[in-house]
């Protein structure tokens, strides 16, 4: 007499049967699609047109229009510049004027708006994306008094140094033209940053454009203002003279790449 199969066997068989039936059916019908997913990674070709060019545009480039030096001037409560400012031990706010910064791809420099797409070319090479960031060299504004002989502000006076800290950071306000920048596929950094002793040497992302989205005329702009307070009770070693404070050097770095993965690494998580 035949022994009846264990109870679990039909259930297992049902599952396996369904699995194999599905697999074999898929292999028979969609064999090519399945095989495709098993292949190694490869490169896909790109269609390229060729033809006689009458006019040769310039190469596309990354262009950054930045301020050469950022000057901070004393302002009153209404934001008006104080002409004849004298430091008498009272705190005083100093700010920069609003500057327009532009970051763009083009064959021309000095643009304040997006160029036409035909105004530059990559000449069949891969478009270049960029991560633009900035960092500060130090967390202090160093004070210099005037040399009476030369008349230049070269006499170092540490008593008048301004340390950047949580109570008195260098405040950066960068207002992006959001619609313009995001419409052209830029990634944007923070708009409000307090730069101080514990973060000045970080790489702050400013803007980025992945090579995947780089065309010939991506354009982004922002209005920038820096602000700082000259604290109260600084004690000068030299008095009755003119002072200037040399702040940290701001280094803007444009990292160029044609590789989206490299771009992603530099932009960060």
């Amino acid at each position: 007499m035949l022994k009846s199969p264990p109870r679990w066997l039909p259930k297992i068989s049902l599952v396996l049967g369904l699995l194999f039936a599905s697999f074999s059916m898929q292999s028979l019908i969609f064999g090519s699609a399945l095989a495709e997913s098993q292949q190694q990674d490869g490169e896909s070709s790109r269609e390229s047109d060729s033809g006689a060019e009458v006019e040769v545009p310039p190469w596309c480039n990354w262009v950054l229009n930045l301020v050469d030096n950022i000057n901070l001037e004393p302002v009153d409560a209404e934001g008006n510049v104080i002409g004849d400012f004298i430091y008498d031990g009272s705190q005083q706010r100093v700010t920069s004027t609003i500057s327009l910064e532009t970051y763009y791809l083009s064959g021309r420099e000095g643009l304040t708006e997006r160029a036409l797409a035909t105004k530059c070319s990559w000449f069949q090479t891969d478009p270049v994306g960029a991560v633009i960031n900035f960092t500060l060299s130090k967390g202090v504004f160093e004070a210099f008094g005037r040399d009476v002989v030369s008349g230049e502000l070269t006499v170092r006076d540490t008593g008048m140094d301004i340390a950047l800290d949580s109570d008195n950071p260098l405040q950066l306000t960068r207002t992006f033209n959001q619609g313009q920048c995001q419409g052209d596929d830029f990634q944007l950094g923070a708009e409000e940053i307090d730069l101080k002793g514990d973060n000045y040497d970080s790489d702050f992302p400013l803007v980025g454009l992945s090579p995947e989205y780089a065309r010939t005329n991506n354009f982004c702009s922002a209005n920038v203002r820096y602000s700082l307070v000259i604290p109260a009770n600084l004690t000068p070693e030299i008095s009755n003279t003119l002072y200037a404070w040399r702040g940290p050097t701001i280094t803007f770095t444009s990292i160029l790449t044609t590789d989206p993965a490299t771009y992603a690494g530099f932009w960060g998580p």
Partner: protein
Amino acid sequence: MGRRLWIVFWVAAFVALGNLHYASANDFNLRVVTDDRHDWTKSATLKVIAEPGGEDYREVILTNGTNKVLALNLDLANTKTTDGKTSIDDDNDAISAQFMTFSENPVVIPAGSVKKVRLIVKTPVGTTPFSETPYLLLSTQPKKPQITQDGKIRAYLPVVNRVAFPIFVGVGKYSDFATNFEIDDVQFYVSPQGNAAKLWIQNNGRLDLPIKGLLKFQDAAFAGQVFGPYKFDNAKVLPQSRAFVSIPLPSDITETTWRIFAEVDSNDVVKTKIFVKDVSFSSVSILERVIFGLIFVLSLVVLYWSYRQLRRGKNRNSDNQAPDLSTEVIDAPAKKAPAKKAPAKKAPAKKAPAKKAPAKKAPAKKAPAKKAPAKGRKRNA
């Protein structure tokens, strides 16, 4: 009133514009000079390779797009990764920095002008071969502000504009870095856009392999018309690796035996290969089809058997629960099968009274109890 508002608006607009300073341009750029000395110098990507104990160079053209004299500092830097973010490592030099010199550094470029700069790699004898991809840094020099006697400038922030270009620096035998590839195979498949060929290429070199090329088809049996060329461009194969280029094919290329002519060009090194292939855009062979067909039939048999077994088991279970319910319809069954089974399953029916719990459960099963009279009515009808 409206007019006053307009005046206020225009005054405010002029004040705002007057307060807005356009940033001055910091524009410069770099182009790589190409030449025929090596495979890699034919490409506009920045690669400089020297043999141990030897010297080699690469030239770049720097353009000053501003209307001022520009002084650029050149340097090499590696990258570092902190918390998943990559950045230029200003604290540690690239390995190749010790071997690289520049024909001029800093490079002073007159306004609106260009300057050619040579990047020289010179290594002592016995240098261990290596390669790395650091960044060539071009930095402007911070300007000193014009401090005026009227004391207008109180504090300032010097600005440096720096551009980082990727550069490949290699030290080793030229032959290791030479263009070295093989056309490996051609396969066919159905891509989302339609029929296509995969041309497999093996890069045996130590540099990225930029490739372009074509495929042509001719009927293997009757020769005659040549179809193609079907071209590809701008593809790249990584060093010491195998990759394919996908080439879309028209409907002219049917599933038959073709003579396929493949041509691949990389750094002006052209290689060709002729394949004779039974073109099939389905990647499943006849043998595989037979095997998969058999598996499918077998799966159906197993499914049917499982279905039968499960159904039988289900019937068995329903019979096991019968005693409590059958009390109401004990003489009702008209179906033959249950009638036959009933006597064989007397044992559970006898056991039922002994087990008090099942007897208690019976009233809880209201649904079956209700169904029983319905069946009875049907039968009575």
